[in-house]
Every structure is written in structure tokens, then in C-alpha cells.
């Protein structure tokens, strides 16, 4: 019983210590109910990720629940302003454990280039975050990468915040490179 409660609580890093934990992790990661806390331009890419081409539904994370009580994944999509921050904090507090938070976009991760009197410089100043997705706005592929990263973390029981890494671009694809002159 002690082992199960250790995994059920939030905010602890560790790894799955038993088959039951692995089963729980598997069940949780493929049935994430999202709460789309959409504010700004990233919302358009969030819509596109939910669309037919990038289809977040195939990862099991496509069911939006617009009540924090019924959801376990909080997508904070877009800029959070000082005026909005109390609402965000309250919604996070209303969610039941285990809950995960994805900071979608640069504004949610670090305030973006809105370095001014009205923007919260990153939502992790208000609530704990599991995955940061850089990008302004991030491409849907980056969003799906971050979702897969989160799913791995849920399977392992890892709660340290991570940043979804950009994919390496092969040199052949880079635009603007002229072939060297000696060819």
C-alpha cells in the first residue's frame, strides 16, 4: 500500500517500482483528459493539433473536458497575463491529483518577448509545470513530441520539469546553404 500511495501523490520523482505502477502509468498516459486553457495565438496551433492532419486523438489525449474537476492534463496555451494569473492558479488548484501541466508555447514557458508590466514571465512562476514546449507558436509536431515526452514521464512517474527538444534538422534540409566552391 505504501508503494501505491507514493506513486499516486504528485510532485515526486522516481520510477515505477512494480507491475501495478507500470499498469497505472500505462492507463494514465493513454487516457489524458485535457483542460485546454487557451488564451492566445498558440490556440490556433492547438486547434490544428486537434485537427485531422495532426490528430492528437490518436494519442488518447484528444478529449477536452472543460471542467478542471474532470480533467488531468492542463494545457496552458498562450500568454498568461497578470490579470489572468489568479484564474489559472485557481483552476490548477481545483484539479484533482494526479495532474499534469504542459506549458504550450514560449509565452507560457517564459513570457516570450512580452517582457513587460502585464505578462507573467512563465507560468511556472504560478503553478508547477511538467513539460515546456518552446515555439512561437510551436508546430503541431513539436506539440506531439511534447505529449509523447509527457507520456513517458507519466509511465516512469517522473515529475521533474523538462523542455521538449527541437528535432535535429538534417544538413540536407537546411535552406540557404550553397554547396562549397570546390565541387
Amino acid at each position, binding site marked *: 500500500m505504501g508503494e501505491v500511495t507514493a506513486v499516486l501523490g504528485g510532485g515526486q520523482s522516481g520510477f515505477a517500482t512494480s507491475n501495478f505502477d507500470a499498469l497505472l502509468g500505462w492507463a494514465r498516459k493513454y487516457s489524458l483528459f485535457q483542460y485546454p486553457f487557451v488564451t492566445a495565438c498558440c490556440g490556433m496551433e492547438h486547434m490544428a493539433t486537434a485537427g*485531422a492532419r495532426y490528430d492528437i486523438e490518436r494519442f488518447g489525449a484528444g478529449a477536452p473536458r472543460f471542467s478542471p474537476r474532470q480533467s488531468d492534463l492542463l494545457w496552458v496555451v498562450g500568454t498568461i497575463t497578470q490579470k489572468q494569473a489568479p484564474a489559472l492558479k485557481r483552476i490548477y488548484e481545483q484539479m484533482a491529483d494526479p495532474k499534469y501541466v504542459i506549458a504550450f508555447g514560449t509565452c507560457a514557458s517564459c513570457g516570450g518577448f512580452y517582457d513587460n508590466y502585464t505578462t507573467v514571465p512563465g507560468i511556472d512562476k504560478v503553478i508547477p509545470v511538467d513539460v515546456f514546449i518552446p515555439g512561437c507558436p510551436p508546430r503541431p509536431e513539436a506539440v506531439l513530441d511534447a505529449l509523447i515526452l509527457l507520456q513517458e514521464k507519466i509511465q516512469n512517474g517522473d515529475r521533474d520539469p523538462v523542455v521538449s527538444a527541437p528535432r535535429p534538422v538534417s544538413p540536407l534540409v537546411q535552406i540557404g546553404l550553397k554547396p562549397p566552391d570546390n565541387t
Partner: protein
Amino acid sequence: MEPTEEYEDENSLELPAEPMRLNMGPSHPAMHGTIRMVLDLDGEIIRNVDVQPGYLHRGFEKSCERGTWSQVYPYADRLNYVSPMLNNVGFSLAVEKLMGIVVPERCQVYRVILGELSRITDHLTCNGAMAMELGAFTPFLWMIKVRDWIWDILEAETGARMTHSFGRIGGMAKPPRPQLKDDIRAILPQVERVLTESEALLIRNRIFIDRVANVGKLSQKDALSLGITGPMLRATGLEVDVRKDNPYSGYETYDFEIPVGHQGDTYDRFMVRLEEVRQSCRILQQAIDRLADDGPINVSDPRVILPEKEAVYHTIEATIAHFKIVMEGVKPPAGEVYSYTEGGNGELGFYIVSDGSGTPYRVRCRPPSFINLKAAEIFLRGEMIADIVPAFGSVNMIGGECDR
């Protein structure tokens, strides 16, 4: 609770009714971002609504005063983020008006092309989201599919799917690709097909009509006094479009019509946007026939346009010109000017004040969404809570533009 023997006769029951105050937002699925509405309700009927914007105020106007005139473009992109090229073009036109610059004709056609593509994505997103909120998820998916194709074209042209930052003072960042014409010719029939299919699902659908017809009516007099522009004003029956009244970028030479509605309700707004997509396709068809395959895109003024990179690396004059434009910024003469274009939601105006230096003194964006949103306080009175969803969706309140 006390026993209720005294009230056995139901007709004698006096049910107390007092207005209830309900809060919608600022995080709400149908609030398109972040708006808070405080409703005074009498049962289901709305007696009064207090719309509270400002939850996405990102300090656009103050941030513009921090950098140079060219550094405004990323901020301007994120104003109406569903049609970013329209904001880019609008701001370019404002600074060019102040400087007295006229861009070459090829650039004007290119601006029209990218602008109309953005306008199509704007209207498709608005209508798709509105349909989705009423329960019709399929037209939303179809419109997002077509929007992704249009974004593919814009990504190949500008480098980014959404916030392109492609406009420049005195031109555009890069000339059009040779494949642009074929790409657009391939996509226009797809847009038309999706419109036809979505129309077949929606506009004669009993449920859709019941939810949106005669809901959220706005009179012409109220609309003018409020300062409404764009599809909301055209839905009330007035033919007002900046592209026809004060043409810019060569719009007077294109053959297109302005769709107008009859009674200014939600159904009319939806239909006006749908028809405007068709008219935008018509303009695009004419524009790509007109786009020259070669010719200058940027005005040839070294104080405004960055010189060619090869010249910058090899000649001193180009290096100095490049240095001055990047470090000090483009320097419009001191003065103030108000320039307006037709954005996705109406008259998108930029009132800019320059003090002669490379730093903007004041950049004011006249936000059509903000001014249109006030109408919600008027047309929602007397409607029911469930009517808020389509009526508010038809206002197309884009948070970035409304709160800046």
C-alpha cells in the same frame, strides 16, 4: 427545512425570483480565448451583461516604443493572430503613408495575395469554431483541414505557418516563390469544395437555423454609433468595406462584391463571412493572374530597405546603410498619421506618431474586435444563456486584437 403543509395548493406557491449573477470566463471553452462576462440572469434570460476584456492585454503599444519601427512586426502579427498578414500589411501601409512611399505594383499584388489568404483563414476559423460550439464538429474539421493547406502555402512563402512577420516598410521580406501561382491555383478549388460541403451540412439545417437565426440582432443605428465595422456591420445591411470605400494596394482594380446581410443577427454574420471567403477566392484568382514573374518587390530606397547581403559583405556603402537601418532604425519624418485597412474583423487602423527617430513614439492599433465586442452588451440583452455561445462566436473576438 420546514414542513410545507400550508402550501399544498401549487397555484398558491409564490416562488421567489431574484436576478442571479453568473460568471462566464475568463477561462471558458466558448470564450475564444479570454473574456469574462458577468451575467445578470432572470432564470435563463439575460437582463444585463458586463463584458470584461483585458485578460490578454500584452502591452503591444508600450512594447512598440521599445524597439525600432521594423521591430513592431512581430508584435503586430500577434494582434489578429488568425490573419497575421493583414496586420503586417496594415502596419506597413501606415509607416509608408507617413514617409510618403509607394511600393512597386508587384509588391501591391503580392500583399493582396497574402492578405486575402489570411482573410480566408480568419473567416474559416471563425465559422468553424462557431459551428463546433453548436455541436457541429465536422465542418470545423474540414475547415481546419483547408486552413492547414493554406498555412502550408504561407509557410513555404514566409517561413512560418502562423505569425509570419513577413511585412517590411517599403516592401516585403522576400519576393514571391515561382511556385506560388500553381499552389494557389491548386488550393482555390479545395476551398470552394469545403465551403460547399460545409454549407450543405449547416445552412439549411433546422437545428443550426434555430440556434442562430434571430439571435443577437443588432440594428444599423446602434452599429454605426458603436463604431462597428467589418462583417458585423455588413450583416446589418450596410455596404461598408475599406477595400471599396478607401482602396489601397490596388483594390480598386479588382472585381469583387461586398456581401451584406439583412437583419444583423448571428445567421447573417455567419453567412457574410462564408460569402466573403468566396469573394476573397475571386480576388485571389485575379491577383495571381496579375502577379508579374519578375520585377522589384521592395521600393529602392536605401534609407528604408536593407541592401543585398552580397553588397553588404563587399562594399562599404552598403555596410553603412545596413548598419544605420539595423541600429538606428528606419526614420520616418516627425508627424502623425492614421492609416486603415480592412482587417478580418473590420477597420484595422494604425495611428502612428513619429518623432523623427528610429524608435516609434506611439503606435496605436485601432482594434476592430475591441470596438465590435461592446455590441455584445447590447445584443445579448433578452437572449438566453445558450444563445451567448453562437452570438459571441459570430463577433469573432480575437483576444490579441481586442486586448492588444
